[in-house]
C-alpha cells in the first residue's frame, strides 16, 4: 500500500522575540498560521484538519490550550489534535500532520507549534518537584552540561569548539529576519568571554527564551499541483523514543537518535548523508550539541563531529551548512523550535530561504529532540517528489 506523497506548500512564522506583549496566545498563533496560508495562497476553508503542538502547558499556565485556540486557528467544525512530546514536539507535530496526508485521511492539513514563554516562567515550568527528579538540576543547561563534558572527554575535542558554533549560528541569525537574537556586534572573542553558566556552557552558547509560532500547510499530490510556489516534498520522517534514565543509556549519542536517523535515511533512500544532504537544521540549544548530533546522525564518524565544525564545513558557505537560520541558539520558542527546524529545511529546498539560502539545496534534514535526550523527530525534504 503506497503512501500518499506529502508536500509542504505553505510556511509561516512570527518574528521571534523575548516578549510579544502586543498579542494574546491566540493572536500569536494566528499570525503564523495566516502567513503559512498566504504562502500557500489558501484560505481557512481549504484546511481539512489542524494539528497543534507545544511543550509543557505549564509554560503558559493554560491546560490543553488547543481548546481555547480552536477559534483562532479556524478549527471550528474540523478535527484538531494536540501533540506533546517535550522538546521534540514541533517536529512530532509536523509528522503527525504529515501522517494524516500520507494515510489519505485528509488532503490538506495546517500544522502549527508555538510557545509564548513570556506568559509564564519556563524555569519554573521545567522545575519538577522532588521526589520526581533530583533537585539542583538548575534548568535544562544543568541537565545537559555533564553530557557535553562526557563528549569532550570521549573525543578529545578542544575547548573552543562550542564557541565556534555559537559564533556561527548568531551570525547566521543576522541573515534571518524572523530570528530572535540579532547580535550585530557579535565577535568570537565576545562569545568566549561570556559568563560561564554551566561549565563548559557559556551564556552566549545557550538558547534564548522566545515568544513565537511556526506553521506549515501540508498537502497531497493534488494540492501540490495547485501550489503557487515550489513545494518541499517529504522523503522520510520518523520518531523514536527511549527511556529517560537507565544504566545502558548513552546520553552523548542516544540510540533513539541513531535509529530515528537510520529510519529516515532508509525511507529517503539516502546511503551517505554527508554527501547526499545539502543543508541541515539541527536542534542545538547548547552549542556543543552541533558536533554531538553530527555524529549521532551519521554526518561524521564517532569522535569526528567537532572536526567538521572546526574546519568550517558547517558554516553557511561550507560544504555541509548547519543551522542556516541561526538555529535554536538564536531563536527558542520551545514548543515551536522543532517545527522551525522542519520548516527551515523545507524553505531551503523550496529556494525560499532568502539571505540564508544555501545555493542549490536539493535535500535538507530537519531534526528535533526533547526530554532527557530521549525523544527524536526528523524529516528529510527534497525539491523533487519522492520516487518510491
Amino acid at each position, binding site marked *: 500500500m503506497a503512501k500518499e506523497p506529502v508536500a509542504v506548500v505553505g510556511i509561516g512564522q512570527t518574528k521571534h522575540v523575548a516578549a510579544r506583549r502586543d498579542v494574546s496566545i491566540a493572536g500569536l498563533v494566528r499570525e503564523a498560521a495566516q502567513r503559512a496560508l498566504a504562502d500557500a495562497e489558501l484560505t481557512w476553508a481549504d484546511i481539512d484538519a489542524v494539528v497543534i503542538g507545544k511543550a509543557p502547558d505549564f509554560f503558559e499556565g493554560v*491546560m490543553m490550550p488547543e*481548546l481555547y485556540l480552536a477559534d483562532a486557528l479556524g478549527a471550528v467544525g474540523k*478535527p484538531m*489534535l494536540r501533540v506533546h512530546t517535550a522538546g521534540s514536539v514541533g517536529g512530532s507535530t509536523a509528522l503527525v500532520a504529515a*501522517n494524516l496526508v500520507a494515510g489519505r485521511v485528509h488532503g490538506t492539513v495546517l500544522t502549527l507549534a508555538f510557545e509564548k514563554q513570556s506568559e509564564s516562567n519556563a524555569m519554573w515550568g521545567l522545575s519538577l*518537584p522532588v521526589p520526581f527528579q533530583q533537585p539542583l538540576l538548575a534548568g535544562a543547561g544543568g541537565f545537559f552540561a555533564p553530557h557535553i563534558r562526557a563528549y569532550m572527554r570521549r573525543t578529545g575535542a578542544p575547548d573552543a569548539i562550542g564557541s565556534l558554533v555559537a559564533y556561527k549560528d548568531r551570525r547566521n541569525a543576522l541573515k534571518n529576519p524572523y530570528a530572535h537574537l540579532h547580535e550585530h556586534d557579535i565577535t568570537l572573542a565576545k562569545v568566549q568571554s561570556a559568563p560561564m553558566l554551566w561549565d563548559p556552557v557559556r551564556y552566549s552558547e545557550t538558547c534564548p527564551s522566545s515568544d513565537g509560532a511556526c506553521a506549515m500547510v501540508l498537502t497531497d499530490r493534488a494540492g501540490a499541483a495547485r501550489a503557487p510556489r515550489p513545494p518541499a516534498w517529504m522523503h522520510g520522517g520518523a520518531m523514536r523514543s527511549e*527511556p529517560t534514565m537507565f544504566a545502558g543509556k548513552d546520553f552523548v549519542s542516544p540510540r533513539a537518535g541513531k*535509529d530515528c536517523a537510520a529510519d529516515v535515511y532508509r525511507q529517503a533512500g539516502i546511503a551517505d548523508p554527508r554527501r547526499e544532504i545539502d543543508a541541515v537544521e539541527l536542534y542545538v540549544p547548547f552549542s556543543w550539541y552541533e558536533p554531538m548530533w553530527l555524529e549521532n546522525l551519521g554526518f561524521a564518524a564517532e569522535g569526528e563531529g567537532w572536526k567538521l565544525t572546526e574546519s568550517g564545513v558547517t558554516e553557511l558557505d561550507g560544504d555541509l551548512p548547519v543551522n542556516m537560520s541561526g538555529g535554536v541558539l538564536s531563536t527558542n520558542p520551545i514548543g515551536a523550535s522543532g517545527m522551525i527546524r522542519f520548516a527551515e529545511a523545507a524553505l531551503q529546498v523550496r529556494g525560499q530561504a532568502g539571505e540564508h539560502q544555501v545555493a542549490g539545496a536539493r535535500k535538507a534534514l530537519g531534526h528535533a529532540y526533547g526530554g532527557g535526550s530521549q525523544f527524536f523527530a526528523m524529516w528529510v525534504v527534497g525539491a523533487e517528489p519522492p520516487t518510491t
Partner: protein
Amino acid sequence: MAPAAPGARDVAIVAFGQSDHRRSTDELSEVEMLMPVLHDVLAATGLKTGDIGFTCSGSSDYLAGRAFSFTMALDGVGAWPPISESHVEMDGAWALYEAWVKLQTGDCDTALVYSYGKSSPGSVRDVLTRQLDPYYVAPLWPDAVALAALQARALIDAGDTDEPALAGVATRSRTAARANPHAQLRGSVPHGDYVVRPLRTGDCPPVGDGAAAVVLAAGERARRLCERPAWIRGIDHRIEAHGLGVRDLTDSPSTRLAAERAGVFERPVDTAELHAPFTSQEVVLRKALRLGEQVTVNPSGGALAANPVMAAGLIRLGEAAARIHSGASERALAHATSGPCLQQNLVAVLEGDPR
C-alpha cells in the same frame, strides 16, 4: 473522511484493559497504576513491547501537577530498544486516533495505546478551569460542574429534559455499573443534594484515578491476535468554538458531524458507549447521535460510574470493543469528549465480523 473512503485500511481493537477506578490511589504512582493495565493487554495478545509497531499515549501535565509527566510512563513501557512513539496532551481516545492514522499509512501493523489520569492529588473541578480562555474566563475560576450546570439549565429551559429524567439517567448508569468490576460507583445511589443547580450529586461523575490501554492491529494481523476483532469501521473527531456564549449548549453539532463522517448513520448500532460525565450531557449526545430506545447506552455504567480524566474517553472505545469481542454487540458506537460542555467530540463505529 478516510474511514468510509475506499482504500482505508481495516484496523481493529484487539485487546482492552483498564484499572479498577478508585477515589484515590495515594500509594501508587501513575506508572504503577498503569503498568498492570499494559501487562494485561500485552498478555491478551501475546505481544511484547518490542513487537509493537507504534505506541501512543494520552495524559495531562496539569492533572499530574508537573511538566513532562508522560516521560515517566514511557520508562514504564520499557522503550528499549527505542520505539516509534508519540503522545497527545488529550484524552487517550485521541491517542487511539493518532495510532489509527499511523496504521493507515501502512508504516506498521500493530499499535499500543494507553492513557491515565489521577484526579485525587488536586481538585479536578478547579484544575479544569485552567482549560478555559486564559485572559477572560479562567481568571473567574468557573468550575467544571458549574459549566455543566449551565448546560443542564439550558436543556431544561428548552424542554429537552427535566430533573426526574436526569435522575433516570443516573439510576440506569449506576445500575448497569453493577456488572462492571472496574467501576468506581456501583449499584443504586441516592440522587443526592444539589451540587450546582440543577445538577445533584447523582448527575455528576465521581472523581477518581484510573488507567486504560488498548492494542490495535491491521488486517490479518488483527485476526491472528483476537478471536473476534472489533473493526474500526469509521472514526472522526471535531471541535467547536470555545466560548460558551457562541454555542447552543443544547446541541452538539461536532458530535453529529463526527458521527456522519464515521458512518454512524449508515446502519443502526446496537450499543453506544457515550462519554457523558454529566447526566444532562447524555441527553445532548443521544439527540446528536439519533440514538433510539432500542440502543443499549453505556452498559459499562459510563463516566457516571467512573470518570478517570484523560482515560475515560479511551475506556468508552475499549468498552465498546469488549462488547464486540464477547459477541454482545455486532455494531457499537463509541464516543469521547474533551473541553467544557462537550466542546470536542470523537465518534467511532466498531463492528464484529458477520456471524
